[in-house]
């Protein structure tokens, strides 16, 4: 079943990218979810779309091929992250307002650039919903680099990030450099989003960061386990989603997220059944 994936280079690149984002999206997502910042991913993904559209526009109108949409997407995502951090500082009491601002500006810019680049075409379609055959070898190399960066960041700063997510005041008193860490964290989020977009698409990239974590949290007993299960769920969703997407000719964004949602549903159901069963068992002892 996997033969086709390894026969063609583009599909092979997609598969490797899938495995990487199935790892780094839930890895970072676990922190995003417990910090109650799930919406940040949505905000940034729409800014990334503006970047992608900007790249397309420059290429189509001015044939400036150096503006590869993938790269302009990363650039916009990073700029978006910087603006969010800045806005959160300006609106200290209403930090969440940064997200709708950045999201709407992202969509607004996207519409303008898409229109200027002659409207919706297949490229934009693949950016919105993800694509099975969009990863060139140089894209893959960049995604490998991003993945390594994220993994090293989490490995080195795990304790600080965990403490900051749980109780920021205690973390700061203990000497965690909260400002720097928050800043690097949101930069990493921007990078993961731009790396994941090729596969799951702009509209669903935040789902890949949050759905596996929502599932993992239900069965994990500790935070480390939450990360572990989230990654397992993320990888299953990506692999199943890519293969079914390929065979049924559906953009993988849809199939990956539906798989994630099914896993979440099954896990919740399983938990429920287990709870009911243990209740019955308790009754049995009591009687």
């Amino acid at each position, binding site marked *: 079943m996997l033969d086709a994936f390894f026969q063609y280079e583009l599909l092979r690149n997609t598969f490797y990218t899938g495995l990487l984002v199935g790892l780094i999206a839930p890895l970072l997502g676990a922190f995003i979810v*417990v910090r109650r910042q799930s919406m940040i991913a949505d905000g940034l993904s729409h800014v990334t779309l503006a970047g992608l559209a900007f790249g397309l526009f420059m290429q189509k109108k001015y044939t400036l091929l150096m503006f590869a949409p993938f790269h302009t997407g990363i650039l916009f995502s990073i700029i978006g992250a910087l603006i969010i951090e800045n806005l959160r500082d300006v609106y200290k009491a209403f930090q969440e307002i940064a997200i709708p601002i950045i999201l709407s500006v992202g969509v607004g810019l996207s519409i303008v650039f898409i229109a200027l680049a002659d409207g919706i075409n297949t490229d934009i379609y693949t950016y919105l919903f993800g694509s099975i055959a969009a990863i060139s070898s140089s894209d893959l190399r960049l995604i490998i680099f991003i993945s390594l960066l994220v993994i090293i960041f989490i490995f*080195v700063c795990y304790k600080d990030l965990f403490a900051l997510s*749980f109780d920021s005041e*205690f973390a700061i*008193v*203990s*000497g*965690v450099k909260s400002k720097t860490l928050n800043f690097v964290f949101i930069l990493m989020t921007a990078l993961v989003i731009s790396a994941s977009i090729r596969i799951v698409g702009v509209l669903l990239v935040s789902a890949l960061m949050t759905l596996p974590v929502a599932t993992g949290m239900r069965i994990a007993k*500790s*935070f480390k386990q939450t990360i572990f299960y989230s990654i397992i769920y993320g990888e299953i969703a990506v692999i199943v989603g890519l293969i079914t997407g390929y065979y049924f000719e559906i953009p993988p964004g849809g199939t990956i997220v539906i798989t994630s949602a099914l896993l979440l549903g099954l896990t919740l159901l399983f938990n429920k059944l287990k709870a009911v069963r243990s209740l019955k068992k308790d009754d049995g002892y009591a009687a």
Partner: protein
Amino acid sequence: MSDPIVTVQNVYHRYDQQTVLENINFNIEEGAFVGLVGPNGSGKTTLIKLMLGIEKLQRGNITAFGQPIQKFKNKGRISYVSQKANSFSRGFPATVKEVVSMGVIHNQRRFLPDQKKDQGLVKSALQKVNMEEYINRNIGDLSGGQQQRVFIARAIANNPKLLILDEPTVGVDSQNVEQFYDLLSKLNQELGITLVLVSHDIGAITTYVTDLLCLNRSIHYHGNPNEFESLTDEQRSILYGHQINTITHNH
């Protein structure tokens, strides 16, 4: 007598146009158990945040262990149990062990830290608060009182000299509050940790603390809690600046 571990001199603080602290002066001696009391909005939390260096000092001087607070490098000497700690824990997927491990974050080198040493510190902290049997439980599954013990363990894991607690009994049910204060007394007397306990409930803490500090924008009383006890309600309310919520506790 050795130098005070914290000195606060002529401290003023304001948010926008509102003055929240006015002419604050006091010292904290090593080994003391200080009760910082005052009604809601009296500036207690602001004052301790200034002492912790979380809030930026606007006017006046604060020193900790002889250094100005702006330059003070903590290195685990001052620890903190925040008001927020309790509200964040519900639903957070973490075990007691993981929570207490946060207390030993910067002990060691970042790469390949000595896990065994950290784990030893975590275990001994949990023993001190009688929670070692809960080490692998989820923090969200514990009662309010148990969670607060875990937060104490986290705060003392690195063997601090000074522990500041902001309203730690919020969310602890009334039967366990007394036990909780007993635990604090034990930390103070047996382990020699200097304590600053912030509370709005003066009646509950006077029997435990060695120093009482009544704050309502400025300091209205600083001294022995027994002397404070002997004052009449009228004298107290003058000291306090306005009416005081005296709750009688019959222990």
